[in-house]
């Protein structure tokens, strides 16, 4: 095919446009257009005659873009020019400067000034200037700006320095400090090269050697090396570098090359990438699956977290996973996070059907979509990583399509308590708990490591939620939008011999729809405060252990409240302190979407186990209370602070509640009748609603948002007991 018969493609998305392009198969006589955007994909040019490949550095997946660039030659030393969005390179066969546009067809340029009959394999572009390097020959630059007016304009190479002593096969410009970086194939040393003078500085050793034929940067300043011999892609963290970075600071950097993904083997090659592009383009649907364990396990892309290219063939569970733009953090994980306009819980292929008991075998049911290879890691010592010896308990096991029953031996010294596991299923083997994979899925699962013969009772289920919704204007009844505090909530009771030995509670703050500052706590009715083991009581905020439930200046508030006959654990003294909102409220105003920011887990061990018959029923007694020293409505002359509590209907407040508040304004509580927190119409200030409830938007009453709530209430639950379901709502009155 001749140059003028080529189709016009659009950057990395050309495959998407192919059908349309075929329909309009116009033969054009114009020269190639530049790329329409700064592509996130890396480009690899290799072979003679040269072929070009697109490489997803995140997973290592690659595909052939063009095996006929219009010249029978090798093109090397390629670089992406962000000014005109062409790829520039050196035709090493015919000693010519060349460039390629979005059609990947080579256009020879009119260059002079280079030594005769010398070819160049090392090049890159920055600031509209092409830089070339050849050991023992010299370091040159070419101003590309004349091409803006005339693509046949004469160009002249200028010698920067004839001192060219370091051994390179590629280099690349850092997007933030304007310097070139390259790795010596033989020594593994990482160099910084000054493009103005050609002087170089040896930063340190990367720990890897080989022919690094292609080098790339991303917009965050991570440096990627592709090794020809085995296709391995390594990453070096140069993200901290700026124009102000000194050589001393450079010398102190850890420049170890970390295995990042498996790419293609190659030879006679070079790589080019638009350095200011992110690795994952969020403007197009993601085809990558990430995990959702806490970040210490290596989950986010910035941490080289585990990730897989979706192939719709290799996955765990009955349905393929959805694509993610990055790993997820927190109790919500990726269950409800929207990416690609959709989201569902795809952590559904691994089932721990027996408990993980120290020293015993545990049975795990794993459902595979197809044959493939499974590896799994368990944080047995609960130190927040999978890197310890013996923590990879499943190594490259071949699964068959369908249900697979696996047994793992839990180490006898495994640390009892909550922890995490990671399952990676792929067509590849030898995966680590981090890094990219070209196929499959990663599933991260929270686990409970237990001593023998423990049972678990979940409310409402192991990974399900109930939603707690509060109006915080008590004792006034106001707009009834039930969104002043919205909290997702679940509990787990750990049972031995029909006695509860521990209660775990998790929650996620969904919304704050009021000005008042409220804390959140849980009362365990009939469980004495003295029966809580304070030594092992544990509260996590966003996976970080807390010493207190709140601090203010030098003041601190304990997690287990003192002087309470019933155990009361405070989760937070002020929920507003847990979030930052760019709006007046937090996730209640329509059009003011913000990410969920606060989750908690609390583990409440009992000193003396409590029989099942004596245990209060889940969800126990979760309530909000007024934050100390802050205004909480005109009803109160003085700031009520901790003495103001708002509970579910007919749940008695704790001993810290000021009983003088009963009966104020619209409240009709009557402790003699065990009547609490109801209006004269018997309506509550707090409700527990099954599932992940969508709450009303600001100042829309629960009746406006959920019209069938009326029938539900008036029939005492006999009718419309699914009033809270999404398909029962008037979506115009919901936050989302």
């Amino acid at each position, binding site marked *: 095919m001749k140059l003028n018969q080529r189709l016009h493609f659009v950057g990395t998305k050309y495959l998407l446009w192919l059908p349309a392009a075929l329909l309009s198969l116009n033969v054009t006589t114009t020269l190639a257009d530049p790329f329409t955007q700064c592509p996130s994909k890396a480009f690899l040019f290799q072979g003679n005659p040269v072929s070009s490949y697109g490489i997803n550095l995140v997973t290592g997946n690659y595909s052939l873009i063009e095996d006929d660039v219009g010249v029978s030659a090798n093109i090397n030393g390629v670089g992406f020019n962000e000014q005109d969005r062409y790829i520039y390179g050196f035709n090493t066969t015919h000693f010519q400067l060349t460039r390629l546009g979005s059609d990947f067809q080579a256009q020879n340029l009119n260059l002079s000034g280079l030594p005769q009959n010398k070819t160049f394999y090392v090049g890159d572009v920055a600031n509209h200037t092409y830089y070339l390097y050849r050991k023992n020959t010299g370091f040159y630059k070419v101003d590309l700006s004349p091409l803006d007016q005339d693509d046949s304009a004469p160009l002249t190479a200028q010698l920067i320095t004839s001192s060219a002593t370091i051994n390179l096969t590629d280099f690349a410009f850092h997007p933030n400090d304007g310097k070139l970086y390259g790795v010596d194939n033989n020594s593994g040393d990482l160099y910084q090269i000054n493009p103005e003078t050609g002087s170089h500085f040896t930063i340190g050793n990367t720990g890897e050697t080989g022919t690094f034929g292609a080098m790339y940067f991303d917009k965050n300043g991570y440096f990627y090396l592709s090794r020809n011999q085995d296709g391995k892609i390594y990453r070096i963290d140069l993200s901290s570098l700026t124009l102000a970075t000194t050589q001393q600071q450079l010398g102190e950097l850890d420049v170890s090359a970390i295995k990042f993904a498996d790419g293609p083997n190659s030879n006679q090659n070079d790589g080019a990438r638009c350095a200011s592009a992110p690795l994952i383009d969020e403007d197009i649907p993601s085809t990558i699956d990430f995990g959702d364990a806490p970040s210490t396990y290596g989950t986010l892309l910035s941490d080289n977290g585990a990730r897989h290219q979706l192939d719709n063939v290799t996955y765990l*569970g*009955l*349905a393929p996973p959805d694509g993610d733009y990055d790993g997820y953090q927190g109790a919500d994980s990726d269950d409800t996070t929207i990416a690609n306009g959709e989201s*569902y*819980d795809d952590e*559904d292929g*691994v*089932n*721990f*059907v*027996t*408990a993980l008991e120290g020293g015993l*075998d545990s*049975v795990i049911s794993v*459902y595979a979509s197809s044959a493939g290879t499974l590896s799994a890691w368990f944080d047995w010592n609960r130190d927040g990583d999978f890197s310890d010896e013996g923590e990879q308990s499943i190594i490259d096991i071949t699964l068959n399509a*369908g*249900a697979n*029953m696996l047994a793992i031996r839990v180490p006898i010294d495994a640390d009892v308590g909550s922890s995490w596991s990671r399952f990676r299923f792929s067509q590849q083997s030898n995966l680590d708990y981090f890094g990219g994979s070209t196929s499959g899925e990663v599933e991260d699962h929270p686990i409970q490591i237990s001593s023998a*013969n*423990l*049972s*678990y*009772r*979940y*409310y*409402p*289920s*192991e*990974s*399900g939620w109930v939603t707690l919704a509060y109006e915080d204007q008590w004792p006034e*009844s106001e707009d009834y939008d039930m969104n002043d505090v919205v909290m997702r909530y679940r509990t787990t009771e750990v*049972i031995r011999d029909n006695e509860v030995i521990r209660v775990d509670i998790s929650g996620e703050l969904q919304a704050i729809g009021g000005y008042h500052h409220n804390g959140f706590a849980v009362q365990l009715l009939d469980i004495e405060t003295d029966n809580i083991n304070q030594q092992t009581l544990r509260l996590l905020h966003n996976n970080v252990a807390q010493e207190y439930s709140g601090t203010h200046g030098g003041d601190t508030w304990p997690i287990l409240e003192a002087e309470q006959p019933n155990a009361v654990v405070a989760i937070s003294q002020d929920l507003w302190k847990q979030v930052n909102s760019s709006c007046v409220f937090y996730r209640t105003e329509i059009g003011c979407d913000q990410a969920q920011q606060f989750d908690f887990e609390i583990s409440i061990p009992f000193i003396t186990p409590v029989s*099942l018959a004596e245990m209060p029923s*889940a969800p126990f007694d979760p309530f909000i209370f007024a934050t100390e020293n802050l205004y909480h409505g005109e009803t109160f002359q003085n700031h009520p602070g901790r003495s103001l509590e708002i509970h579910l*209907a*007919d749940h008695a407040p704790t001993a810290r509640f000021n009983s003088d508040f009963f009966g104020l304004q619209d409240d009709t509580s009557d402790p003699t009748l065990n*009547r609490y927190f*109801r209006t004269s*119409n*018997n*309506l*509550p200030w707090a*409700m*527990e609603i*099954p599932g992940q409830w969508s709450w009303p938007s600001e100042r829309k*009453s629960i*009746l*406006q948002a959920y*019209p*069938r*709530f009326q029938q539900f*209430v*008036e029939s*005492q*639950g006999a009718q419309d*007991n*699914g009033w809270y379901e999404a*398909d*029962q709502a*008037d979506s115009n009155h919901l936050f989302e």
Partner: protein
Amino acid sequence: MLTTNQKKITSLLLVLSVCLVSLNGCGGGGEEKASGAVNTPVPQNDTSANSSDGDNSSETEQLDINELVAEPDFSFTTKSQVSLTVNISVQQQERRHINLYTQYQKLDNGNYYPDPNSRIMRGVMHGGHYDSTFINTTSQQSYLIEVWNDDLSFPLQQELTLVNNNLSFTQ
């Protein structure tokens, strides 16, 4: 406001989305429908949809929240406590593992596929007898129980139906 046509389209989309959910394995309880068995009334075509402006009847007739009156002891939930009893024939003091789920599917091969996220109980049973209780939050009527051995054999599986707030599995 939704017009009549928009409502029809919305209903169609709802049906489609339910199908997609089912295909994606998010339902449970039987081959075709989500068991989960929530007694959720599916919204019917509202008669008011015949009105020319497409007003939602429930909205036009909507009560002000301050006019809504509940019974003095209404808890605003339909939760109830459920008792689970398991009796299976095993060797004396032999150990088994109980798993109880709310969401599951029946596969083409006749086996059930539980959604582990919906597990509400995981218990150890000695001697073939197990008793426990749990809170049913959604008036769910159907559950899947699995009884696993410590070896790698396929578990006993049975769909259980709630009778007078009791679930019973005997084998």
